């Protein structure tokens, strides 16, 4: 137990050291702290964007989802792949526009494109709201790792607080450069660990991957295909579409694309990243093996599946290395998320509310906000009881609402007006909030609807309403604007 905890502590300390090292020689102004001075080449942008693949979500969340639900976990492999296709076409024009106008955040982009401060503020708020569940899931993951590596000696609440404190410290001293460099270590370690345990565990317990799947299929006949209701094929298709479109709507991913030196970086990444994320397969193997070897975890406890089977199968020092890899998967994305949420709030909300705020003040305020956000995240991580994947899907339902207005803004003649975009996003986000708070599903609202409608991800329903309202309000306001324009002449 002590060995495992020491290894995990060392990895966190190592990450902090890299963070301090990476910032040396760079004055930490707003552009340097958030977009690395826009000087990142292929390799660093690749790592920053690829770093998004291997987070606590993929490590503990994907294995837990495979363990608890089976086939629905496949969506994780599908949506990333399709998201990179979207990025191939979407990111180069976004990057070009952002560079030309010196933008550093996602709300900047909307505010500038639509010529509307109010839209920028709305986008910032949606971003911050969506980032909260994403941050909560990283803290949940950190808490689980500390808890499991101490073999239960450190309780959940304390584990989460330790994790949140480390991430906070890391953000304040490091900035985006530290995150990119730590990503290298993190990805190398996680790939080694995932491939090793993904091959070792099925071979150790069942003599191979195919025999392992055959055993799962024999024990649970319908586990490896989609159910007829609930998490059905319709759920799969709608969830993959929602998350593939939303992937680069995350304010931190959107912001990460500003760090690139040129736009071809994104096109090449779209070829490489689908292959890079195939390592997730090995995480699935662990989850499926665990579903037979250490059965009995239910609900949020399925997040523990990977660590539970590792504790059962390996000596403490191996558990320590696995835990160290897990800590890094939460630390790097967690730090990017916190930095991004703080910058959004400071630059695109506070600075708009109090004109005349200097860039230096914006950075200082953002740094003060980091611990506040950490406390909020830690609170929800301690009190919540959701699976990691459910948390991420909630975040996705929010951020994807920004997609229609963004894509339309890239058209040569944008038919969408600022009020149209504003109304669409409000309706989309409002729909998601209603369904989430009321714990509603389409199936409960319209019990008579055909099964494929009942199982749709609510985020896609919100997206559809968002689109309809956006188009309708745009049509009305465009006519009003045209009328006002001709009356003025």
């Amino acid at each position, binding site marked *: 137990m002590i060995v495992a905890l020491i290894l995990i502590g060392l990895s966190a300390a190592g990450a902090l050291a890299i963070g301090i090292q990476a910032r040396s020689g760079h004055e930490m102004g707003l552009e340097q702290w958030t977009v690395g001075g826009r000087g990142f080449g292929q390799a660093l942008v690749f790592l920053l964007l690829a770093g998004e693949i291997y987070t606590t979500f993929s490590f503990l969340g994907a294995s837990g989802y495979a363990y608890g639900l089976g086939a629905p976990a496949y969506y994780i*492999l599908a949506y990333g*792949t399709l998201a990179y*296709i979207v990025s191939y076409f979407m990111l180069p024009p976004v990057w070009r526009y952002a560079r030309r106008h010196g933008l550093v955040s996602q709300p900047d982009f909307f505010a500038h494109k639509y010529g509307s401060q109010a839209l920028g503020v709305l986008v910032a708020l949606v971003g911050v709201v969506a980032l909260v569940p994403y941050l909560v899931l990283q803290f949940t993951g950190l808490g689980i790792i500390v808890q499991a590596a101490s073999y239960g000696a450190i309780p959940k609440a304390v584990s989460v607080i330790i994790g949140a404190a480390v991430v906070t410290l890391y953000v304040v001293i490091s900035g985006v450069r530290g995150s990119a460099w730590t990503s290298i270590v993190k990805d190398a370690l996680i790939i080694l660990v995932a491939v090793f345990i993904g091959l070792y565990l099925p071979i150790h317990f069942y003599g191979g991957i195919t025999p392992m*799947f055959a055993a799962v299929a024999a024990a649970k006949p319908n586990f490896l*295909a989609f159910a007829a209701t609930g998490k059905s094929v319709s759920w799969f298709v709608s969830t993959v579409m929602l998350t593939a479109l939303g992937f680069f709507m995350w304010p931190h991913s959107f912001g990460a694309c500003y760090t690139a030196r*040129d736009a071809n970086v994104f096109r090449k990444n779209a070829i490489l990243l689908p292959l890079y994320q195939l390592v997730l397969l090995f995480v699935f193997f662990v989850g499926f093996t665990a579903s037979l070897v250490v059965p009995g975890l239910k609900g949020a406890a399925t997040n523990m599946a990977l660590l539970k089977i590792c504790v059962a199968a390996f000596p403490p020092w191996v558990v320590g290395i696995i835990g160290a890899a897990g800590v890094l998967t939460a630390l790097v994305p967690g730090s990017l998320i916190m930095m991004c949420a703080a910058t959004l709030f400071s630059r695109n909300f506070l600075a708009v509310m109090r004109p005349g705020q200097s860039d230096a003040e914006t950075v200082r305020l953002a740094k003060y906000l980091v611990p506040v956000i950490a406390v909020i995240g830690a609170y929800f991580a301690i009190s919540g009881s959701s699976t990691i994947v459910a948390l991420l899907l909630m975040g996705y339902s929010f951020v994807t609402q920004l997609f229609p207005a963004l894509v339309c803004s890239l058209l040569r003649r944008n038919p969408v007006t600022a009020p149209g975009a504003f109304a669409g996003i409000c309706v989309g986000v409002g729909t998601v909030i209603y369904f989430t708070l009321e714990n509603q599903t389409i199936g409960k609202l319209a019990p008579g609807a055909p099964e494929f409608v009942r199982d749709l991800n609510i985020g896609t329903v919100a997206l559809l309403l968002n689109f309809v309202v956006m188009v309708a309000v745009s049509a009305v306001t465009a006519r009003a604007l045209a009328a006002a324009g001709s009356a003025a002449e």
Partner: protein
Amino acid sequence: MKYVGWLAIIPFIGMFLGPVCHNAVTPFLLGMPFLLGWTVIWVLLTAAIMALVYRLDPHRRGDDVEDAP
């Protein structure tokens, strides 16, 4: 080759076709349950298709660097 970008629709169709048409565990593909194997195959095909799109893309050259302020 202005329309080469439309090739990128193929992975979307391919990825969904498996679960929609054949939501079953067998036959195993690549030693994995059918739907998982199907997804992996489409991840590989997507990389190949995007490599082709990149190779034929007229936007690839020139437009990015000179846009710098």
